[in-house]
């Protein structure tokens, strides 16, 4: 079998072959349409846009409701609550917008990029899908109470049925959004999971080998300590130190 030079030497001697390759069109990089379009990012940004718009509409409707129901303390309390929730949801949406840009910033180190994206899709994204579903219920409530205002009162004739239908609608929306985004998200999650396994592989195997040798290291230290202790005591007894 023929023996070759070391990996480092082979690489050093041959890398100019790659460097010589010609790829035209650097000057046109700004016209790049990005053939590898990040569809996930586009879908999420479209959802985010719709989500924030709906919340703005809800907030405006709730301000109108606060005016319309100003003589009704119960309704004021309810609409204040809904307005506060809408504003909190808007805040979360803006935070998400900023976070998406941050987690996909290519200037991060590789491991951070992977872990940030995994955390995003595991936590932030899941929370947000629930928020989108709840937003539709909030908007629907805001519209209903504004339209069905009866001289400053609003009556839900069957509160249990109303609650049940609203809860069903929220759940239905959650499932629909997940199903629509599922194919793209599944591919991304598999990819991230694969990359994550590659990033933790080194730490895991390193930790495993450390754990494997730890009992021996401890035993060795004990033996040395006992031996040294014996010699010290022996020295004291013998030489009266």
């Amino acid at each position, binding site marked *: *079998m*023929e*023996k*070759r*030079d*070391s*990996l*480092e030497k*082979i*690489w*050093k*001697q*041959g*890398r*100019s*072959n*790659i*460097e*010589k*390759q010609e*790829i035209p*069109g*650097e*000057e046109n*990089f*700004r016209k*790049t349409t*990005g*053939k*590898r379009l*990040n569809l996930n990012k586009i879908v999420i940004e479209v959802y985010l846009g719709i989500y924030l718009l709906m919340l703005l509409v809800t907030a405006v409707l709730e301000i109108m409701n606060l005016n319309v129901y100003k003589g009704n303390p119960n309704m004021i309390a309810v609409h204040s609550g809904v307005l506060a929730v809408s504003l909190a949801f808007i805040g979360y949406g803006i935070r998400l917008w900023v976070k998406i840009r941050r987690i*996909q*910033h*290519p*200037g*991060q*180190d*590789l*491991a*951070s*990029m992977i872990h940030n994206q995994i955390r995003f899709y595991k936590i932030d994204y899941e929370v947000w899908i629930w928020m989108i579903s709840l937003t539709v219920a909030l908007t629907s409530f805001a519209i209903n109470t504004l339209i069905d205002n009866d001289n400053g009162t609003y009556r839900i004739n069957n509160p249990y049925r109303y609650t049940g239908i609203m809860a069903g609608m929220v759940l239905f929306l959650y499932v629909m959004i997940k199903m629509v985004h599922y194919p793209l998200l599944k*591919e*991304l999650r*598999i*990819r991230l999971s694969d*990359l994550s396994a*590659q*990033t933790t*592989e*080194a*730490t895991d*195997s*390193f930790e495993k080998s450390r754990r494997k040798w730890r009992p021996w290291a401890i035993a060795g230290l004990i033996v040395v300590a006992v031996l040294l202790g014996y010699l010290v005591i022996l020295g004291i007894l013998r030489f009266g130190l």
Partner: protein
Amino acid sequence: MQTEKENKFLEMIRLHKGLLMKVCSLYATDREEIADLYQDVLLNLWRSFEGFRGESKLSTWIYKVALNTAIMNLRQKIQHPLARQVVPELPADPIDDSAEDFRILHAAIRELPEMDRAIILLYLEELSGTEISRITGFSEVNIRVRVSRIKSKLKELLLRQGYQIN
């Protein structure tokens, strides 16, 4: 007409083109893919060009952006059995043994998982442990362990093809 910023950027790209080609050739399956990936890398570099404040070496930053772009490329996920065999054709002198050795080594590196490819590329390009750590996010100790494993893996891959490496 190009702005001063664009001229500065393009000058930077020309100076580091070799680096970019090395990254793209390891993460793309054919010439068309290399060209696509190269353009994507340029776009990402351009987008983060203004944000680069010189906290690290320019080459470290370029490696980071290029490797992130290459590794996060989803299309790579779709691996047909034949695609893995199509390696970019490297211009090589038929009399030159070192070019042939390099071609075989390059093909073996492409067989490795994406993160391992990044680490071994940075190691073979003689970046320091600190620089590799900054780019990958792994500790320097992890990198040393990993490089050792990757080299063994590469030697094994090459041995299977009948090449023994020192």
